[in-house]
């Protein structure tokens, strides 16, 4: 099946009223595939994940993004989410006073309403939540706490993967751009994506950290440098990047 789930064409984007950061990025992800984008700091990885999620602090100046054939850039952040785009945050936000259980049920019901499905009542929700909690190794008392408040780094990651497991998104975008990541948290994310692999779903892992790919096997690895994809390869490219760094590719690009 070669249907493209996500097609980014010659994308140019910047921080609102700032300098251009994405400078002609093109990328296509077929349905059912997991792709990884890697690149050094400052190459535009965070900007790409924010642009995909529709953050208002970023501006697309030209180019297009098609998601399941629809113009993604025409949709608001929350429309994208209801349409099945999920951004797993590197640093999930703490929201004091909003119960995690209530939050999870609200987002699941927002997605279900959009899909024309009935809302889940608290009992039905709990049934599903228990299964999902178990799959990410979280205890049910996590539902009683405020969203991400006081969670450890690993718990926050598990809570992101838990949301992913409940929402069953069509496109998962994982923002793991920071190099200072803890190994446990990384494993949780990697295993979560691996477990969610399906012919219907695609994932895009945006990372600085080749070791994330020890836990999930991508179909393709792309190298992002100065706002463009400069090289694409198979999973083995990740290992090569870990061994050799990015310099050889970036220099190659510069001398080309």
């Amino acid at each position: 099946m070669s249907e493209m789930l996500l097609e980014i064409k010659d994308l140019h984007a910047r921080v609102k009223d700032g300098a251009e950061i994405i400078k002609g990025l093109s990328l296509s992800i077929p349905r059912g595939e997991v792709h990884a984008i890697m690149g050094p700091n400052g190459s535009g990885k965070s900007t790409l994940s924010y642009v995909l999620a529709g953050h208002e602090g970023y501006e697309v100046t030209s180019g297009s993004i098609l998601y399941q054939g629809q113009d993604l850039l025409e949709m608001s952040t929350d429309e994208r989410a209801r349409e099945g785009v999920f951004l797993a945050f590197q640093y999930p936000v703490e929201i004091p006073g909003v119960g995690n259980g209530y939050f999870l049920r609200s987002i699941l019901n927002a997605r279900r309403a959009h899909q024309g499905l009935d809302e889940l009542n608290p009992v039905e929700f709990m049934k599903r939540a228990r299964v999902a909690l178990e799959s990410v190794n979280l205890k049910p008392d996590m539902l009683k706490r405020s969203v991400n408040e006081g969670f450890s780094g690993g718990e926050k990651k598990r809570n992101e993967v838990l949301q992913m497991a409940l929402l069953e998104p069509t496109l998962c975008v994982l923002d793991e751009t920071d190099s200072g990541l803890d190994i446990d948290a990384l494993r949780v994310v990697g295993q979560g994506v691996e477990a969610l692999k399906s012919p219907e779903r695609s994932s895009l892992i945006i990372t600085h950290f080749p070791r994330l790919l020890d836990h999930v096997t991508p179909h393709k690895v792309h190298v992002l440098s100065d706002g463009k994809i400069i090289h694409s390869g198979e999973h083995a490219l990740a290992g090569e990047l870990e061994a050799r760094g990015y310099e050889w590719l970036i220099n190659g690009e510069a001398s080309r």
Partner: protein
Amino acid sequence: MRREEPQVSFEPALELTPATGLLSQARRAQARERFERATLGKSEAWWYTPLGKRLSPQYALRDAVAPQLETKGAVSVLTFAEASALIDTPVEGAEGARQTAIRASELLGSLATEEGEAYCALNTAHVERGLIIYAHSTEGEAPSVRVTWPVTAGEASEASSSPTATISRTLIICEEGARLSVTERFVSPEGELISSALSAHVTELWVGARAQLTYLRAQTTALTHHHVGRISASVQERGQLTGTLLNLGGALSRVEVEASLEGERADVTLNGAFTGSATQLLDQHLTLRHMSPNCTSAQRFKGLIGGSARGIFTGRVYVAEGASGTRAEQNNPNLILTEGARAMTRPQLEIYNDDVECSHGATVGQLDERALFYLRSRGLTQAVAERLLAEAFVGEVLSEVRDEQVVAEAQEAIQRALKTLESLES
């Protein structure tokens, strides 16, 4: 620096009641004289609340409408009229009630004194409608009383074109060792949306030694109403007062608290929320007096301000010379929803003692953009995300409110404040 305050006057529509056991004619006359010499709202304490500019220059006094009452458990409730009659003319078989009335006559006006704000004098001079709530039992579940004061504009008067003012009062006595829970609601009768009436209510709270009083006050009047409320409390040794003050409705609403921690180890916890929309002015003005050693107090007031509303918080903590071991906390976070909204916060500490721990914090902020983005990235609309965050902000105060109707009214007020946000965005 003193602002010129226009004088607000009151034309009494009613003749003063004859001398009664509860408040003597002499006392009333004295209070009236004191009020006439004072100017309502003219002091530094009213700096942010220009009462004279907002109120009508003249009001016609009307009898307040009888409150609705729901009581549970061992608690006595008497109206001022009943108490006065019992004191003046003993009735056989009603000795208990008479004792309550006599006790009430001792305390009434001793907690909210006419030397205080001018409208305490106004209240003493003219109050007709009042309630005495009395608990002395220490056994079983804490009794509870729920009072709903309908602050109606009253009947139109042919003699006067002035808007009406109603004056009412509550005296709550929680005797030594007793437990009691009281809810006072101030509501506009349904459908009465256009009214520039003023309601002025004084609540006096007596918390005896080792007594526990839980007090919830919810002001949800129509957005055209003016309300001035005062709570005067005295807490004796090891007594506990836990109050929640919700200031939600009204065009202008000032709620003033004057609480004295009189006995050793007395404890006062006051939580509050105020939510503003349109041009509402919501003023909370608290003074806590630590008069004895080892007393504790905590104030936590949350403001959610939208439209071009004003939220004002003044929290004064006074620690007397002998009140060592005092612990006092104060916290006033505010959420500003619109550019036109304002929050003013003034902590004031006055400490005459070295051995004290006082903390205060006040913030004025906006809805957390990062949290909003996070919620929206999960599929919740901007409006739902804002509601979640605003409810979570006020939720810390509301989560302790057991009265479902009051919680629903508070959520409605939150919605009203949030609506001003949406209309700006669209």
